[in-house]
């Protein structure tokens, strides 16, 4: 069945555009053209997100990443609407810089710090699906290895041990950096994240943050297309809710 056949729209997505966002159009493209769902770009000065099911904070360098990545974007006018959207149970997905914005805003715990080896890393990375029961991963199998591009200088996830233990226990670690066969090893922990964390969610399971860029490889024409599975999971979660 073609994605187009679902054009009625089970999932309406807003992609927030900050000055300095650079993966906004890719995210819009995946929702609109790959999944066939309604999607709109929303400027960060807007103050409402009413009518949207999913809000995506895209990758890039919002406000130049000045001070700290996400520190200024977190006070953009749209962020009050993002907080309200999350509070009413709406889905929020922060990708890369969007993840940094969500941690700065306190919508997700922890911090994303300078990569262990300082360098900006732009290449494909393997990530292992640690929890396949969430709205962002339900189209994946447990332990499934996805190859997804990463592109960041500040992606090393840091939190204190009690918080890390809690994330583990509550199944809130969604993705971990791994080897091609799912091996968890320092060699494959590209940026030195605590416990190789590449993606997490909030307690309620509606706010997600990940450093990899699934929107940059969601179709076979640009690579393996495995990023599609995360977006397809979100769509599936709305279809199930509607059924």
């Amino acid at each position, binding site marked *: 069945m073609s994605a187009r056949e679902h054009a009625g729209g089970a999932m309406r997505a807003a992609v927030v555009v900050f000055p300095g966002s650079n993966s906004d159009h890719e995210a819009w493209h995946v929702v609109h053209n790959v999944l066939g769902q309604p999607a709109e770009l929303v400027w960060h000065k807007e103050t409402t997100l009413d009518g949207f099911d999913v809000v995506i904070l895209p990758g890039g360098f919002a406000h130049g990443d000045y001070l700290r990545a996400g*520190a200024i974007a977190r006070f953009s006018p749209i962020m009050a609407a993002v907080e309200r959207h999350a509070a009413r149970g709406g889905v929020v997905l922060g990708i890369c810089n969007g993840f940094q914005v969500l941690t*700065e805003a306190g919508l997700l715990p922890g*911090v994303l*710090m300078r*990569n*262990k*080896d*300082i360098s900006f890393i732009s290449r494909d990375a393997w990530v292992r699906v640690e929890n396949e029961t969430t709205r962002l991963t339900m189209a994946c199998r447990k332990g499934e290895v996805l190859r997804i591009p990463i592109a960041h200088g500040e992606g090393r996830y*840091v*939190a204190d041990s009690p918080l890390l233990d809690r994330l583990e226990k509550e199944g809130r670690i969604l993705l971990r950096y791994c080897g091609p066969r799912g091996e968890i090893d320092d060699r494959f922990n590209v940026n030195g994240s605590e416990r190789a964390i590449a993606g997490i969610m909030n307690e309620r399971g509606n706010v997600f943050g990940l450093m990899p860029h699934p929107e940059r490889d969601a179709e076979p024409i640009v690579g393996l297309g495995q990023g599609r599975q995360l977006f397809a999971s979100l769509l599936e979660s709305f279809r199930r809710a509607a059924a």
Partner: protein
Amino acid sequence: MKGMKALVYVTLKPSVLDPQGKAVLHALHSLGYEEVADVRVGKMIEIALTGKDKDSAGKRVAAMCETLLANTVIEAYRFEIVEER
């Protein structure tokens, strides 16, 4: 008119790994400064302020640090308020 200035120092908490400091440390070693035992890189932010009341300025600068200038999960801050000459 004479104003005030806040000098805000934002540093990584001691428990936090500072790869940037490590890189500077290695560079200093390779320049022959073998006495360098460790380096931590932080930020100094200079804020020009209007008004004359140092106490209330201090309270507001502390709030600025908590809200925006430092991420207190990983960073510590301190500041001094100085009168501009």
